[in-house]
C-alpha cells in the first residue's frame, strides 16, 4: 500500500491544484492584502519610519510582507481540507486502497504551489515599486528555501485547524494571529524603537530572525546567527505541527 504513496499523493495533488486553477481568485486574494499593506507602508507610513539602514524602505519591508502573504495563503488549506471532510469525498478516499498519508500531503503540496505563486506576484509588484536586490542565484535559492520551509511549517498548522474545525469560519480563523505576528517583529520598524517588553517579544519571536535572514540575503550582507535561529524555529514548528496534525488525523480515521 505504501508503495503507492508517492503516486497517490501526486494524483490527489493534481486534484486540489485543479481546484485552485478553477478558482484563481484564491491566489489573487492571497496577494491583494499584502500588496495593499505594501502600498500603505511604502507610500504613506514609510516616509516617517527610520530604519537606520541605507536601504530603500520597500527593500526593508518586503521580507515581512512575504511572510504575511504566506500566513494568509495557508488559511485556504484549512478551508479546503474542511470542505473535503464535510462532503463525502474524504470518506470515499479513506475507504479506498490508497496510502492514507497522501490525503494530507496532497493538501500541503498544493498549499506550497499556491503560496509560491502568490509570493511571486507580490515580489513582482515590489519590483514595480522599486524593490532592487543584488542577490545572486545562491541567495535567491536560500530565500526560496526559507520561504518553502515557512510555508510547509505553517501549512501543517493549517491542517490541524482544518481537521479539528467545526465550522468554515473556525477553519480559517486560526490564521489571523499568524498574519499579525510580523507587525510585532523587525519586519516594518527596528525592534529597538519599541518599548522594552514589546521589543523583547519582538526580538525573540520567530518572525524577526526569519525576516532578518531574508533581508540580509537580499542585501547580500553577512547573515550572522539569525539563519540558525530561524532554521531552528522553522524546523521546530514544522515538527510539532506535523506530529499534532498526524495524531489528530489518526484519531479521526480510526
Amino acid at each position: 500500500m505504501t508503495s503507492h504513496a508517492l503516486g497517490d499523493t501526486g494524483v490527489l495533488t493534481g486534484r486540489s491544484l485543479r481546484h485552485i486553477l478553477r478558482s484563481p481568485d484564491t491566489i489573487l486574494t492571497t496577494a491583494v492584502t499584502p500588496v495593499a499593506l505594501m502600498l500603505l507602508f511604502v507610500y504613506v507610513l514609510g516616509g516617517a519610519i527610520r530604519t537606520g539602514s541605507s536601504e530603500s524602505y520597500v527593500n526593508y519591508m518586503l521580507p515581512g510582507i512575504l511572510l504575511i502573504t504566506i500566513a494568509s495563503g495557508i488559511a485556504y488549506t484549512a478551508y479546503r481540507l474542511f470542505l473535503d471532510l464535510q462532503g463525502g469525498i474524504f470518506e470515499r478516499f479513506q475507504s479506498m486502497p490508497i496510502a492514507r498519508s497522501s490525503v494530507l500531503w496532497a493538501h500541503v503540496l498544493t498549499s506550497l504551489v499556491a503560496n509560491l505563486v502568490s509570493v511571486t506576484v507580490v515580489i513582482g509588484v515590489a519590483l514595480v515599486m522599486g524593490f532592487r536586490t543584488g542577490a545572486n542565484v545562491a541567495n535567491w535559492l536560500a530565500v526560496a528555501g526559507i520561504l518553502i520551509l515557512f510555508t510547509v511549517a505553517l501549512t501543517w498548522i493549517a491542517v490541524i485547524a482544518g481537521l479539528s474545525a467545526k465550522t468554515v469560519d473556525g477553519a480559517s480563523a486560526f490564521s489571523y494571529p499568524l498574519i499579525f505576528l510580523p507587525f510585532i517583529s523587525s519586519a516594518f520598524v527596528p525592534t529597538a524603537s519599541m518599548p522594552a517588553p514589546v521589543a523583547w517579544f519582538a526580538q525573540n519571536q520567530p518572525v524577526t530572525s526569519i525576516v532578518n535572514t531574508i533581508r540580509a540575503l537580499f542585501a547580500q550582507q553577512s547573515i550572522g546567527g539569525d539563519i540558525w535561529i530561524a532554521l531552528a524555529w522553522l524546523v521546530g514548528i514544522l515538527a510539532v505541527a506535523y506530529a499534532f496534525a498526524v495524531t489528530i488525523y489518526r484519531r479521526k480515521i480510526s
Partner: protein
Amino acid sequence: MTTEAAIRVQGIAKSFGNLQVLRGVDFEVEAGNIVALLGSNGAGKTTLVRILSTLLTADSGTATVHGFDVAGKPGDVRESISLTGQFAAVDDVLTGRENLVLVARLRHLKNPGRIADDLLARFTLTDAGNRKTATYSGGMRRRLDIAMSLIGSPPVIFLDEPTTGLDPQARIEVRQTVKQLAGQGTTVLLTTQYLDEAEQLADRIAILHKGTIIQNGTLAELQQLLPAAEVEYVQKQPSLEDVFLALTGDPREADADDDRRVPAGKELR
C-alpha cells in the same frame, strides 16, 4: 480463512460514549447476493457499514469482508470493496469525467480515461461528462457516485441509503442501476429505510433493530412471519408513487430533461 461468505459479521458491538449503537450483530452475506439491511433512523445501519468499510473500528466482535478481517487487514479489505455513503461523495469542482478518472487513478488502473468514458456511457452521463458536478441534479450525482464505486470492479459494494433524499424518478434510476449489478456477481450490501426498496432489490433482507439483527431471510420467509399486515402495507404504499409518476411522466424518459430538475444541493440536507 474461507471465502464462501463475502461478508461475515460475528458479535460486532460499538458504542459512542454511553450510547450503545450496535450490541452484538451477527449475519452473513453470500457472495453475489444483494442483501438489504433494513432499519429505522438511528438503528445503527450506517455504523455497521462504516465498520465493514474500515472507516470505524468495532469495540468487540469480528468481521471479515471478502475473506479479510476488517481490523487485521484493512488494506486488503479496501482493495476488495467500495463504499457509496449517504451523501454523494463526488468532487463538486471537478467534472463528472474527472471524478471518474480520479478514482481510476487512485485504484491504480490502466487507461483511466477509457474507464471513465465507458462508465459515463453506461450511466447515461456522457453528455454531462464535461460539466462540473455542482451543476448535476440529485439523481445524476447519485448515478455518478455509484459509477465511481464500480471502478476497478470491487467484489463487494456497500451502498448506504443510496436513494435517501432523491425524488421518485431518481430513486427508480438508482434502483435500476443496483439491479444491473446483481447480474454481474457483485455482492451488494444495501442499507435502506424504504421497505419497497428492500423488497424490489434484495435477495435477502436483514432487519437491524436496537443494535441487533432481529430477522434475516428472503422476502418470502419474512412475509410468512406476518402475512396479513405485510400485504396491506405494500398495497397502499406504491399507489401514491404510481399516481405521482403517472402525473409527472415516465421516469425512463427522465434522462432527457435532467437539467431541469431540482438542483443537487437541495436534496443533500
